[in-house]
């Protein structure tokens, strides 16, 4: 059994149904899903017991009614485990993981800036990428705002109607 399968087996053994849709997509790529409330526990296990000591990034996506977050962590810089979780768009928040992976702070800040997700416990969610005069409440990577609308908002100098 390859290392990927071994990792998969150990997670399944430890978490059972809490981790769903787990699959070795190809060499060195594992994808899995879990609920937001279980995510941190899974990450902690992956870091402490399985040796995933590096977080490559956090991807945020607007799925319409929900937001999806994908945490991409790496084992020996080789095997990438992408763990997906969903949070409601109405109240998009999740616990921070900066205490597990200090470098995650900057990725959480990026997702907050562009998608409006709140990472509770992150000491610094201030603007990272968007300019100082960017209007509040406009999250450019959300699907419910188009490129044209964003440009219009910026041209009008701020408020979204």
């Amino acid at each position, binding site marked *: 059994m390859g290392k990927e399968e071994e990792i998969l087996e150990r997670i399944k053994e430890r978490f059972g149904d809490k981790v769903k849709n787990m699959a070795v997509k*190809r060499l*060195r*790529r594992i*994808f899995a899903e879990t609920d937001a409330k279980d995510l941190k526990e899974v990450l902690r296990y992956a870091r402490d017991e399985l040796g995933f*000591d*590096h*977080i*490559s*990034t956090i*991807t945020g*996506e607007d799925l319409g009614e929900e937001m999806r977050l*994908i945490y*991409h962590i790496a084992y*020996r*810089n*080789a*095997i*990438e485990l*992408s763990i997906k979780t969903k949070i409601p768009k109405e109240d998009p928040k999740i616990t921070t993981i900066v205490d597990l*992976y*200090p*470098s*995650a*702070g*900057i*990725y959480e800040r*990026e997702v907050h800036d*562009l998608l409006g997700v709140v990472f509770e416990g992150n000491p*610094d969610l*201030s*603007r*990272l*990428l*968007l*300019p100082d005069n960017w209007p509040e409440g406009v999250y*450019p*990577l959300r699907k419910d705002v188009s*490129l044209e609308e*964003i440009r219009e908002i910026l041209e009008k100098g701020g408020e979204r109607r």
Partner: protein
Amino acid sequence: MSGSTIKVIIGPQHPALKEPERFILETEGEHVVDVRVRIGYIHRGIEKAMENRTYLQGLYLSERVCGICSDAHTTCYVQGVEELLGIEPPPRSRFIRVVVAELERIHSHLLWLGIAAHEIGFDTLFMYVWRDREVVMDLLEIVSGNRVNYATNTIGGVRRDLNDERIHKILKGLKVLEDRTKEYLKMIGKEQTVLKRTVDVGILSKSDAIKYGAVGPTVRASGVKRDVRADDPYAAYDEIPFNVIVEDGCDCFARIMVRGREVVESIHIIREALKRMPDGEIRVRVKPRIPPAEALSRVEAPRGELLYYIRSNGTDKPERCKIRTPTLANIPSLCKMLVGGYIADVPIVLAGIDPCFACMDRVLVIDKEKREAKVWTLDMLRRYGREWYRKR
């Protein structure tokens, strides 16, 4: 300067092409005690625009995320799209990708070496290195038809082939580069100006390098043997034997040595790739519409781990295209390096992570006691650094 708040805004008006960015440094006396980051001056909104373009149009956009490592971006992107399509580019194209990627690494590292020399005030070295860098610019032009933005990658393979004549020119150019780079490495290792400004400066311990998620030459200069080409091989890297360059110094000097030695190693990799290159076609045709799928693509850009996460939705445009550049990954480590260090070291430590120019020019220095906001330009900070070292 004793414990006060100084805001140092490092403006974009510098001949060595810096872009405006912002770091906020809190200082006490001559030391930096805290760092806050505020980047984004060149934030254009590319990820959103990618959703508005076909996959082929997206290729042109990815190439221009960064003009210095544009090939790393297109390689990462096309590999992701090819994975979505479930296709393999032809073997010969994978070797050509390696050749172009390594030529780019050489140009990027030499560019950096010149800029780093300039940071220390070593302008003669800057001129020499940039003169020699023209050798690799010529090679890139021979291979691709352009000096910058080579457009060799396409979805399904590469667009231009190598023939015997081009290969001969590449090998000739590489010999020149190899000799000169080895000379520079020898010289840098003995040059007091360089050593004084870089040894034991910008320390990032091995454990911190891993903890703070450092990538690329920055992580390898702290004794961590990590390189996506070796660990998560792509293109033809799993068919070419090469060394991952590691140094134990954990300081700015180690970062110079890693990049310098990587230039020599890249020359070796190109020779091996040319030797082992199979015959055959260089691209396969692909369909514009991609059924729903997802892919996580990674490459070792000159600055480190670069990744693209792409999701397709059955149309000819991606649902999501997430790009994480290596410079962003190195910012937490950079903050760690700056804290506890001297203000005089700030320019060289910033340069040490080889920031994609996109992140590094605007610096606010806040000195805690006086609570003043003084504006410094990067030039002033550099001059301060040089003077400070001259007095020691």
